[in-house]
């Protein structure tokens, strides 16, 4: 591996550690749910923000910026943290998470600078992403659109409407990443609805599909960089672990709703820093 890539991976890894620490503290302080759902997509979101959005001064006011949508809005804390780490949100704003009067609630609001749309009701982000990708095609602009959805979110019919739309309109500038943590709110995703096999479904909907380990930054960078053939939109099926990074939370769906106590927080942060 050349030194350049190694450095990039190191940088994203460091960002992931910071995000995990932030979101654990946020959940502890505000007693908020969805911690495990926020932990499973940390590498995905950190890699996109650090390597693919070209965040420079005035990024959020540039109409032709690379766009990011967190369609699984319940992982808002991960988004708030990365926006803070990328200097789009202030520390004060981040610290206001879920306090009365704060715009930073448990699901992202479009009233927050740096947030593209309201998510939290599932199945909205992909369509909005399709509109943005179509807009860039019309403008002949090379900017890209990234949308993160959850596997549970694939229960929503609108995900499949937009999957049909994106391939029909040849939106090769659109990348959708499924945070495939195999759980939804109350059960294993495979037990709730027949959404599997997700890779084959998207392939037959006309997408170029890449399956990878969603916690492997190198794989994520390579997949996000890859250009698709025949103007196909790109679907990255990222195998992840719900609660990733905190041993006692990993793959334990109780942490979909639970927030940590002081002891659990300390233990979790020690674990993150020892990796």
């Amino acid at each position, binding site marked *: 591996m050349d030194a350049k890539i190694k450095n990039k991976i190191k940088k994203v890894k460091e960002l992931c550690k910071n995000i995990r620490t932030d979101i654990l503290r946020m959940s502890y302080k505000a007693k908020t749910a969805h911690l495990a759902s926020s932990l499973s997509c940390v590498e995905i979101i950190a890699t996109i923000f650090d390597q693919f959005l070209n965040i420079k001064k005035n990024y959020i006011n540039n*109409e032709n910026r690379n766009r990011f949508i967190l369609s699984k809005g319940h992982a808002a804390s991960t988004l708030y943290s990365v926006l803070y780490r990328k200097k789009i949100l202030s520390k004060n704003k981040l610290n206001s998470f879920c306090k009365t009067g704060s715009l930073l609630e448990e699901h992202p609001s479009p009233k927050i600078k740096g947030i593209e749309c309201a998510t939290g009701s599932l199945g*909205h982000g992909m369509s909005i992403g*399709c509109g943005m990708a179509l*807009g860039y095609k019309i403008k002949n602009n090379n900017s890209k659109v990234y949308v993160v959805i959850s596997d549970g979110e694939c229960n929503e019919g*609108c995900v499949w409407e*937009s999957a*049909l739309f994106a391939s*029909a309109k040849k939106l090769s500038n659109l990348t959708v990443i499924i945070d495939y943590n195999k759980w939804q709110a109350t059960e294993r995703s495979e037990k709730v609805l027949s959404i599997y096999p997700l890779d084959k479904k998207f392939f037959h909907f006309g997408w170029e599909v890449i399956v990878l380990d969603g916690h492997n930054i190198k794989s994520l960078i390579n997949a996000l960089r890859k250009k698709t053939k025949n103007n196909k939109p790109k679907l990255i099926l990222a195998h992840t672990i719900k609660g990733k990074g905190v041993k006692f939370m990993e793959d334990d769906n109780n942490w979909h709703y639970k927030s940590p106590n002081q002891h659990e927080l300390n233990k979790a942060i020690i674990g993150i820093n020892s990796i």
Partner: protein
Amino acid sequence: MRNAFAKKITELAKTNKKIILLSGDIGNKLFDDFKKNCKNQFYNCGVAENNMVGVAAGLSKLGFIPFVYTITPFLVSRSFEQIKLDICYPNLPVNIVGTGAGLSYARLGATHHSLDDISLMKSIPNMRVLCPGDSIEVEQLVSGVIKSKKPTYIRLGKKGEPTINPINKLIKIDKINVIKEGGKILIVSIGNMLGVASEINQILEKQRKLSTLISFHTFEEGSLKEFKNLINKFKIIIFLEEHFYEGSISNYLINTFGSELRNKKIVHTNIKKDFYCGLGEQDQARKKLEISASQIIKKI
């Protein structure tokens, strides 16, 4: 109204490349001229309305001016949440254009009736509701929405409605359109009832009773204020609206200006909530629901 919309949007899109027309697989032939003249501005989004509304939101974020067009219920009730969260919450200037106001598609069955759309759309914060009464109003209101950037619902009828306004009439968003003035009777037409309203106006004229006819086409602050100032001088007020009475603009006006309307005789179309079947064509449907001109006249 449909043809007037197609004509106007084509004319506007030829010079304004930001206008994008999204259709839910309808408008066969209606948009041929648009497609020919504005190639990269028309997208058939298929029978997938929820996605279509989200797509419009995304386009709007990039500075485009989207018009989303399909049969009303498939937009306003089916895609209600997309309209609410993707468009109105971030306050994006997207235009939701529903065709088939009220009983325009009476014979197509209750699935295609549009008797709850105003109620739904005006319940959303930031949403502006436009109910043009004829082709002239359609054309001018469509021009207007491009300049005033707000989420907007445009309630179109079908084709072949009578044109009541003179061709060169100046119609502005959020200004009540006064079509005829005189007398102590005020006829308030909301949307596609303008033809019936005009008939009533003429029947009254034959009975030597003068009346004022207005088209209340915009449900917004300015029009509401104007309405409040206007009603004082009338003794009888007739509200005409092809919509369930509950949730209608008429109902809103009657409730809001209750004290101003005290001591005046109020007549209003009173369509009860129901899934109507067997209504026939729009004219027969109006008779069945007792909102035709001759039936309204009897209530005055």
